[in-house]
């Protein structure tokens, strides 16, 4: 539970993850409240992306628990966590280069009959109906992120910022409850950034998706996030509004070192 009384959609409970001798995440605990846009900031190497990888199942924690709506998800593989409605984007976009922008999106909807091999062999009308629905949905999402004109291009030919938008678009192809964005603003120009902020806010407002965002750009964090969590050396250092965080001595120390205390 967080201060304002809303329920926690995600709770990280005393999670630890080591790589060899390095403790990337070291007893980290935090909560993300439902309907919020929560920022996750911290110096490089603080363990933010590792934490995202743990929450989405790409890494298994050495100890601790991850709760999504009070259910443990840490033992699940990534595709099952996806089915719970927890989606992610990648810090470095992982677009499917040799596929068109449109089919990058059409891959995503869960429960496609055509993914079971005998359906395209023998039950083609059912596959056809779903494909049409997913096609229409993908076009809508592409319009939403303003990539509609690029729908038939190979994803490899997009610019860096467009790839970031494609990552976001991918998460909109199904009923997401919680979306983890890993540096959505990195490499995105100012104009596109404004749009990104507007998109995220609109999604929260209209569909009620919760966002958990790693971001280094403090302007973007200020515009976007209602709560900010600071991580340092694998631990949660502070949690609050950006103004509260800015006044926190420990945060300044973590970012800048002890001499500015």
């Amino acid at each position: 539970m967080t201060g304002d009384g809303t329920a926690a959609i995600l709770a990280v409970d005393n999670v630890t993850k080591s790589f060899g001798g390095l403790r990337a995440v070291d007893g980290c605990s935090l909560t993300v409240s439902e309907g919020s846009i929560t920022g996750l900031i911290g110096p490089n190497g603080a363990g933010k992306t590792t934490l995202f990888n743990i929450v989405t199942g790409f890494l298994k924690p050495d100890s601790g628990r991850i709760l999504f709506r009070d259910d443990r998800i840490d033992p699940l593989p990534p595709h099952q966590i996806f089915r719970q409605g927890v989606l992610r984007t990648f810090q470095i976009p992982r677009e499917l280069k040799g596929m068109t922008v449109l089919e990058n999106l059409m891959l995503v909807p869960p429960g496609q009959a055509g993914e079971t091999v005998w359906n395209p062999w023998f039950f083609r009308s059912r596959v056809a109906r779903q494909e049409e629905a997913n096609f229409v949905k993908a076009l809508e999402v592409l319009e939403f992120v303003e990539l509609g004109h690029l729908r038939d291009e190979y994803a490899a030919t997009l610019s860096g910022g467009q790839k970031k938008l494609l990552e976001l678009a991918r998460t909109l192809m199904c009923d997401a409850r919680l979306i983890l964005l890993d540096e959505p603003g990195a490499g995105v120009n100012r104009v596109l950034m404004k749009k990104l902020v507007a998109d995220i806010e609109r999604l929260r407002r209209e569909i009620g998706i919760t966002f958990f965002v790693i971001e280094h750009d403090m302007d973007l964090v200020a515009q976007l996030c209602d709560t900010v969590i600071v991580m340092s050396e694998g631990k949660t250092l502070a949690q609050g509004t950006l103004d509260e965080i800015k006044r926190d001595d420990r945060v300044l120390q973590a970012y800048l070192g002890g001499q500015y205390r």
Partner: protein
Amino acid sequence: MPRFRAKPSSFIAPATVALVTALLIAIPFERSNGDTSGVISFLVSFLTFVAIYAIFTLGLNVQWGYSGVFNFGVLGFFMLGAYTAAIVTKEPASGSFTDYIGGFGGDLNLLPWLSSEQWLPHLVGLAAAAGVAGLVALLLSVTALRLRDDYLAIATIGVAEVLRRVVIEETWLVNGTRGLTGIPRPLGGLVGSTDYKYLLLAICGGFLVLTYFLIERAIRSPWGRVLMALREDEMATEASGKNVFAFKMQSFVMGAAIMGAGGAIYAYASSSLTPEVFTHFFATFLFWAMLILGGSGNNRGAIVGAYVLWGFWTITLQFQSYDLPDLLQTRMPYIRELVLGGLIVAVLLLRPAGLLPQRRQVSIWVERQLRRRPAAPAGSPTEGASSNR
């Protein structure tokens, strides 16, 4: 990213096919001093084996071309299929120089009023060949398929070599190096032996067409889209909610089953098997070369690749019958391999997508939707050159 550059010129593929075809007709015609019937039987047997090899190339295309599963042990599944089909269709071993397990041919004549001895053992043998190869792939995928590309390649070579050694050393199994002969031919009693080659071509060609349609239908669908996605990026596919390992396994097993079936057809067509035939060069490398040349990720490309490459291989064999200087004559087998290697390097450098590049849209239904709703900007939706934004 040469793969995504503007559309490669489309005349090279038909031109290559035309050139190979012309040589395939002209050289035998010249060698036989204009004996048309000789040329025709040469072409018939050539096409029969192209059809068989195209089946392996299609199987490899499912694994590598679409899913990025690096199987360098085609040989293993080829052998499994060929020997399984042989011991299913043959009579039990007899005589002091033959020793092998199985031999169910006679027991399978279950519908004698339909002359089932002519075809039923072969169908059972085909199913068994695909099944055994698929089963071995399934067992292998539990352990090896989690390996990274290069390690998987090494593991599959290893398995193929183990199978080859077992066939050679365990003489009780499939008669070792003495091989199996007299594998009954499908529908062999229906036509005279001089005309059987046409029937055989029809059987092999028919099976190729069937395989092509089954694969094409499966691939050009959401199923194929997931395979393609995991070829491009496994992590992103996993993050899109797909069970990457399950799909990889399906692709590996299906490809292996197709290779097993191809092995069965090979056994029926050649009617004898010896382990010397199954070299890594012939039974793995050549199929890779066919796929790379024809175009990974395009089923028609796989077939065209089999045609062009086997055509090249056959034509260069014919060169040996010419009165060449000794210097060339004695080195011809090695020159062929050298030229083949050079050809593959040239394809990879100049035309990495192969003769027929992959189609832009994976799913046939997406292609149909796009035809109904053309894109707003200029350029055709299915073949438009990529813009460099």
